[in-house]
């Protein structure tokens, strides 16, 4: 396993992490962060060789996170997320995730409705359940100004699952709101519909001790949905498929068994 990341300040470290992440993310190259062997350090006259501080192989990781969907203009969506990972090796792990949450309207949405009578149509994510793989090419450490060492790793994730979208149909005009002579059908009852999803992302674990880690993930959940599902009158709505990407920031902790 390669351990190839160390700087002596947190700021440098974060910068280096981002750079490293971007490099790896963009190129998916194995040149820098390839699964390593001792031979990779053959050119160095002096090496540190020691048991790994945090070994993940054959360990089960449980995690809890708070996920926030970051790319929504009119609502806030928060999801309580549970993670279960099994690490087959230091680099590869399988992961299952389930998140359930709720949405709150932003002031913008309320303002548009009350001031301009504009009803915004939105997709409220109620849950997602996903399974996939984690690839961890980077394991490193950095030193704080206090001299304390922090070990960390960085991983990429990808997988598939289902995203549950809650339709409230609150953008639909109600019969009581329209003028006489104008007929509108009653809006459908609120419902939740699930769509197949693909996700990809990256994240980092900061190891607090030999079992506990703080963990963040940024993930893109991409799913296609039927436009008619959101329509106020499904019977007359044109059938079409659109795609949506939810970008989530997930913060939490992992515990290795």
């Amino acid at each position, binding site marked *: *396993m*390669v*351990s190839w990341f*160390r700087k*002596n300040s947190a700021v440098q470290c974060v910068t280096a992490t981002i750079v490293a992440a971007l490099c790896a993310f963009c190129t998916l190259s194995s040149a820098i962060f390839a699964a*390593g062997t*001792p031979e*990779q*350090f*053959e050119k*160095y*006259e*002096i*090496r*540190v*060789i*020691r*048991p*790994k*501080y945090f*070994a993940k*192989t054959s360990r089960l990781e449980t995690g809890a996170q708070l996920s926030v969907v970051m790319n929504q203009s009119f609502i806030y969506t928060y999801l309580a997320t549970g993670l279960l990972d099994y690490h087959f090796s*230091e680099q590869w792990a399988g992961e299952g995730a389930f998140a359930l949450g709720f949405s709150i309207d932003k002031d913008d949405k309320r303002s548009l409705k009350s001031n301009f009578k504009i009803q915004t149509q939105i997709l409220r994510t109620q849950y997602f359940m996903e399974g996939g793989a984690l690839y961890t090419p980077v*394991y490193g*450490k950095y*030193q704080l100004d206090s*001299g304390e*060492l922090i070990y960390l790793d960085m991983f990429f994730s990808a997988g598939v699952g289902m995203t549950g979208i809650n339709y409230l149909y609150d953008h639909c005009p109600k019969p009581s709101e329209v003028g006489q002579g104008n007929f509108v059908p009653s809006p459908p009852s609120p419902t939740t519909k699930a769509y197949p999803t693909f996700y990809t992302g990256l994240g980092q674990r900061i190891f607090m001790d030999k079992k506990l880690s703080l963990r963040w993930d940024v993930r893109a959940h991409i799913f296609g949905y039927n436009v008619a599902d959101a329509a106020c009158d499904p019977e007359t709505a044109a059938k079409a498929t659109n795609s949506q990407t939810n970008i989530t920031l997930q913060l939490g902790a992992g515990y290795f068994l």
Partner: protein
Amino acid sequence: MRRPAGTRSLFGSALQSLGLVSLCLVLILPQPAMASYQAAQQLMARRDYVGAASEYFQSYSSPKSPQEKIYSEWGLGKSLQALGFHYSASKFFSNIVRRGPTGMNPYFRRALEELGAINGTVALGQSHIVQLVRGGGVAPENIPGRARGFYFYYIGAEAFIQQKFERAGDFFKKVPSGSAYYAKAQFHLGVIANRAGAHSRAISYFEAARSAPGADAWVREQANLNIARVHYETKSFTQSLQFYAQIPRESDNWLQAIFEASWAFFLMAKHNNVLGNIHTLHSPFFENRFFPESYILQSITYLRLCRYDEVQNSLEKFRDRYKPVFRDLSALLREYSSRKNDMFKLVYDYRNGSLNNYRSAWAILDQLSRSDAYKEPSRAFRYADSEIGRLNGMGGKWSSSGLAEDLKDFLNKKKQVARSDSGEKLYDQTAAAFEYLRTLSNQTKLIQADMFEGRVDSIRRSLNVTQANDRKVFIGGLQPLQLDQQLEYWPFMGEYWEDELGYYVYNLDDKCGMPNNKPGNNKK
């Protein structure tokens, strides 16, 4: 002193009767001794230890009878101990113990027990106790159960210092297994057995010492170090490394373990591990630590790898680093030869960062500051100063009786003795370091001369390195590589990280047999 009521009328009236004058005199003059003892007893019963100590001291200083002096002495010790003046109390308990277990000394056994308890709380110092138990002529049945460990351990220690190992062993064996001194006694038995060549028995004793319930960090570390050394002597290098690896990183002995383990690696022909360990010893973190032999070991390791330039480089570094040390040490020894007592102060100043001279010899002073010869008197100073401070803070409570002055005098003498004993030992250790450096310096000249005179092969043969454990691979931290072990690798690129110390492993090949690889050929 408060003037007694009625004295004004004594001087103000010519009609005072003789009886009144007598009454006033009784009030003004010091109380008779017997009255002090009884008062002390009453105060002791009321747990007024401050008052009791003062009264006991008066009856001890002016006793009505020899018996009263003995009782007062005991009471004084007990009242001082109850107040937490452990060192001060030890003065009076020591007096009692010194008189031996005679019929006229009823408190002998209890005083011995109290001293044992005090020594468990505040170290009295080996010299103090050895002087107390010197001779060891007391019949074992006169030693109370609770004091047996304390008593026999220190008699054994005295014999050990005098190198009477058989006698020492007899006393150490008498230390009961439940005693707080059992672990140390077992440790010393291990040293004695090893000296006698009984390696297995020595290891058993060291094992017993480190696993004894009363084993402190010092005993555990020294036991591990000594087990490692016994294995080294018997050429069981892998086992030796296993015990060196148990010395914790934060210990003062850790670098010593790293250094000694380097020799074990050398004899196992694990040259990259030897050089890795030496890389730790030479890191800037330890520039004030004294391991001159590491350069000799480094040079002969390079010699075994036929890396002659590195041999030369290593010897030069030794000279560069230790020539000034040698010079400063020589001046230091000259200056302190007539005032060895001041060596303690010198090391103290170094430790406190107030020393500005002998800068090149600081590595030696650092080593001295980690030795028992410095630590033990430092503790004595700390405890004595603490009690003197408390005595000063008591105002005039014990001044009128003279107790405060008596105790301060005792505590200052204790400091003086500690300083003097320590000074002698520290001076001797400095002189030994000087001689050691001189010997090593001579060795560097021999290595260099032999190398350039073409006697390299004979030197390499004489190094007598075994290949017996060649198959075993060691990672950093003196640990053998385990199957399926997850490792982390960090390249060293000129930047020392504190957490990496002790984990370095070199990656150098043997250059022996390569064409044109002769001493001096590759000189730049």
